[in-house]
């Protein structure tokens, strides 16, 4: 298997692990409260985890709020879409205008809520979060794969992996 595809699969596994943890936190709360508590603590630095602003599973809130769940869920789907469309190369990245357009509705929704002009609803949180999460991978996954390949090439050029190559 090519190095880029192996790196992509490792990345996909990490995304699955991240999204799985969000669902696992409420799912295991009745069976293993310790694991559930650790998972809630793990996601606490990145989300307010307010009960009223979260999706629920088995009567318990998810590891992160509605907006974050939408971002991570759509991020996962877009990472899968990258494999389908084979857009692994950084040269195939879309125009940078798209990321501005994707982030703008979420920023506007958050700012309007903070200023009290408009109160964000579940629909606005889901739509704006999903929009941002679905566009983001097309801008970060290709340079990530390319960056890891570059680091590997630099390491090989300095004489690294010599033992590994000899044993192959």
């Amino acid at each position, binding site marked *: 298997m090519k190095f880029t595809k192996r790196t992509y699969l490792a990345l996909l596994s990490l995304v699955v692990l991240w999204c799985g943890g969000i669902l696992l936190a409420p799912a295991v709360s009745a069976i293993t409260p310790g694991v559930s508590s650790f998972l809630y603590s*793990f996601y606490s630095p990145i989300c307010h985890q307010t009960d009223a602003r979260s999706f629920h599973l088995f009567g318990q809130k998810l590891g992160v709020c509605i907006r974050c769940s939408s971002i991570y869920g759509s991020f996962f789907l877009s990472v899968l879409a990258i494999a389908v469309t084979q857009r*692994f190369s*950084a*040269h195939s990245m879309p125009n940078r205008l798209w*990321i501005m357009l994707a982030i703008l509705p979420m920023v506007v929704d958050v700012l309007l809520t903070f200023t009290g002009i408009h109160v964000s609803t579940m629909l606005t949180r889901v739509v704006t979060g999903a929009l941002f999460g679905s566009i*983001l991978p097309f801008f*970060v996954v290709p*340079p990530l794969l390319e960056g890891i390949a570059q680091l590997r090439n630099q390491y090989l050029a300095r004489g690294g992996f010599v033992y590994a190559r000899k044993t192959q």
Partner: protein
Amino acid sequence: MLEKPNKLRIALICGAVIGVVSATPGLSLINCCCCAGVWLGGLLAMYLYKQEFTEGMPPLESSDALMLGLMAGVVGAFAAVLVNVLILVTFGPIEAELVRSIAGKVLDRMSEQGSLPADMVETLKDQIEASIKDSGRMSNIFGGLFITLIVYPIFTILGALLGYSIFRPKTPPQTTLAQ
């Protein structure tokens, strides 16, 4: 040919910014929005790093963004814990008293309105008291460091890669992807 700019200095500056933003009460609320303070720190690191490039230097590569994001995230995690401890030592008793007073008033009002039963109010007050006591424990501080050491580098790498995508040169360097 000139060498690329030093990443460590930028990582230290942006790590310190991430630490201060993430640990300062009030400012840290920005991280409630998908760790925005942390990934914006990664984006800032990439912007500052790009500004350091001059003519004759090798071009900016995505591996630079990856390494810069990782370094800024690790520095940011340590800086956040350090600032947190400093705030706890300096303002700890004042902050705890403020939380105790506000939460107590809110719970009492909810109890008077009948939103919460009296025994539930007492349980919640006990939990708040326990969490105030726990906040200064070494195990909690190191537990927090363990989690931030995983989470912050992930988000700073994402921020730096996003920064690379936004600020990248129009003709990116050719790289052999598959080996």
